[in-house]
C-alpha cells in the first residue's frame, strides 16, 4: 500500500477512528496515523464512558444530540462490536446550594437549546437511584443521556474502518505538516515516512497543537491529566450515568458489573508528566472519598485498576472542529476538553460529511477555529 490517499487522518483515538470510519463509509480513501503503538490509546480509553447531553455547553449540544438521535442507538450493530450503549438517563448530582445553582444554570441553558432535562429534588433522585446517600439534595435529570464502553466503541470504529479498507498505521508519530503550492498536502512522521493527501484531518488530542503549529495554526489548548478507576464486578445496581455539579467524580456501572468512575483531585493541570502513564498518587483516594459520600454502599467494592490520561483542554471548553480558511485542506478535530467520547460519533460523522460534500446537517460554525478572541 502506498503513502498517498485522498484523506490522511492524524490520530487513532475515537475521533480519528470514527472519522476514518465515516469517511470510508462514504467511499473515501483514507490513511489513519497513530503516534503511539496502540489505537484508542489517548483519552478514548481513559474516560468515564458518558454519552450525555446534559451539562454541556450549548455550542456543542446540537452535535451530541444529533449523535444520540441518529448514531448511538445503532452503533453496536453497525460496528459489529458490543459498545454497551445504555440510554437510561444521567443524574448530575448536587449536595449544596452552590451545586444547585450550577446545575440550575446548566439546565436552563440546555432547555433553551431544546434538550429534555429538568431539575429534581433529593427524594426524586433516590427514586431513580435508591443507592444514593441522603446527602444528595438535587440533581439535573436528562432521561435521554446514557453511557457506553469507550474501549470497545473506539476499537469497534477502528475494526470496522479497517475492514472497509482504511489503511491504519501505528507508531507513526507526526512531527510536521507541509503545504505544496499553497495547499496542505504532506504529513511527515518521526520515522521519516511522508504521507500525502488532499485533505488532512488533525485529531491528535493535545498533541494537535504542536502539529498544527507547523503550518502556523495555534489552538489555545493545554494538556490536563484526568484519572479514572474501575472496581471489581458487582451485582447489577443501576443503569444511569452519573456526574456531580463540581465533577468530583462521574461514571457508571458497566455491563460487566464493574463500576467505572473518573474524577479529580483539584490539582489537575498542574500535575507532572514524566512521560509515563503514572497516576498522581493523591487522586484515586480522593475519587474514592468522593464516591463514598454519594454511594456509601460501594465502600466495600474493591478497586482493581486506576489509570490516567491527558485531555486536550481548550480555553473555552468546547472542541475546535472543521475547516481552517488560512490552510486549505486542513480539518481540525481536537480540543474536546475531556468530554469527547459521547460526542465523537456525531462529530466524526458530520466532519466526514463536511469533507465529502462540503456541508453539514448540524451547524458547526460556533466551533470553528477562528472563534478565539482576546477579552477586550
Amino acid at each position: 500500500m502506498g503513502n498517498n490517499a485522498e484523506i490522511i487522518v492524524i490520530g487513532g483515538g475515537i475521533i480519528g477512528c470514527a472519522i476514518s470510519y465515516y469517511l470510508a463509509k462514504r467511499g473515501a480513501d483514507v490513511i489513519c496515523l497513530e503516534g503511539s503503538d496502540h489505537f484508542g490509546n489517548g483519552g478514548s480509553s481513559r474516560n468515564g464512558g458518558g454519552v450525555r447531553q446534559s451539562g454541556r455547553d450549548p455550542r456543542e449540544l446540537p452535535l451530541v444530540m444529533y449523535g444520540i438521535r441518529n448514531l448511538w442507538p445503532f452503533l453496536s450493530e453497525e460496528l459489529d462490536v458490543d459498545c454497551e450503549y445504555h440510554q437510561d438517563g444521567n443524574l448530575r448530582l448536587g449536595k449544596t446550594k452552590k451545586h444547585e445553582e450550577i446545575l440550575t444554570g446548566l439546565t436552563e441553558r440546555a432547555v433553551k437549546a431544546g434538550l429534555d432535562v429538568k431539575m429534581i429534588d433529593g427524594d426524586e433522585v433516590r427514586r431513580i437511584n435508591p443507592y444514593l446517600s441522603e446527602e444528595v439534595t438535587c440533581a439535573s435529570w436528562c432521561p435521554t443521556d446514557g453511557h457506553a464502553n469507550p474501549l470497545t466503541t473506539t476499537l469497534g470504529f477502528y475494526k470496522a474502518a479497517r475492514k472497509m479498507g482504511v489503511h491504519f498505521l501505528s507508531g507513526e508519530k507526526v512531527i510536521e505538516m507541509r503545504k505544496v503550492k499553497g495547499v496542505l498536502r504532506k504529513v511527515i512522521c518521526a520515522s521519516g515516512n511522508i504521507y500525502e493527501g488532499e485533505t488532512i484531518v488533525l485529531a491528535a488530542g493535545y498533541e494537535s497543537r504542536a502539529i498544527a503549529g507547523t503550518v502556523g495554526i495555534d489552538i489555545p489548548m493545554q494538556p490536563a491529566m484526568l484519572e479514572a478507576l474501575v472496581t471489581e464486578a458487582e451485582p447489577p445496581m443501576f443503569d444511569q450515568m452519573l456526574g456531580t455539579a463540581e465533577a468530583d467524580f462521574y461514571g457508571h456501572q458497566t455491563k460487566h458489573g464493574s463500576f467505572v468512575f473518573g474524577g479529580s483531585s483539584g490539582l489537575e493541570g498542574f500535575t507532572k508528566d514524566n512521560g509515563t502513564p503514572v497516576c498522581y498518587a493523591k487522586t484515586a483516594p480522593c475519587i474514592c472519598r468522593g464516591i463514598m459520600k454519594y454511594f456509601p454502599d460501594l465502600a466495600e467494592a474493591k478497586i482493581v485498576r486506576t489509570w490516567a490520561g491527558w485531555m486536550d483542554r481548550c480555553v473555552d471548553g468546547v472542541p475546535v472542529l472543521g475547516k481552517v480558511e488560512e490552510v486549505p485542506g486542513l480539518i481540525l478535530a481536537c480540543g474536546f476538553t475531556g468530554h469527547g467520547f459521547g460526542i465523537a460519533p456525531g462529530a466524526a460523522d458530520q466532519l466526514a460529511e463536511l469533507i465529502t460534500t462540503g456541508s453539514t446537517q448540524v451547524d458547526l460554525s460556533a466551533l470553528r477555529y477562528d472563534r478565539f478572541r482576546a477579552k477586550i
Partner: protein
Amino acid sequence: MNAVNDRSRDIGPFIPGTDDDILICRCEEITKGEIRKAVHDGMWTMTEIRRYLRTGMGLCQGQTCAKLVKAIVAKELGISPAELEPATSRVPMRPIEMRIFANELADKKEDGQDGK
C-alpha cells in the same frame, strides 16, 4: 515499539482451531478462539487485546494469563512473543477496597514511629 505497525499487513485468514474453546483468561473467562479472532479484527498489541476483550482486566490483573495471551497473539501475527510489549501495569497491585483506598492514614495523624 511494535513489531508490526502496518495494520493492513496480511496475516492470513482466521482458521478455527480444535483448542479454540480453551479458557485463557481465567478471571474474565476469555477463550483462545476469542483472542485469535480479535487479532484478525485488527487487535495487534497486548493493550488493544486487553481493551477489546478484557483479558487481564479481571481481579488478578493478568497475573496468570499475560504470558499465555502474549504467546497466542504472537503466533497469530507470526512474530516472537518477545516482540510484543506487555500491557501497562496499573495501580493497585492487588484489589483494594474503596473504603481502604480512601483512607490515607498519614494525613490523619503521625504516629511518630515511622520514618524520620
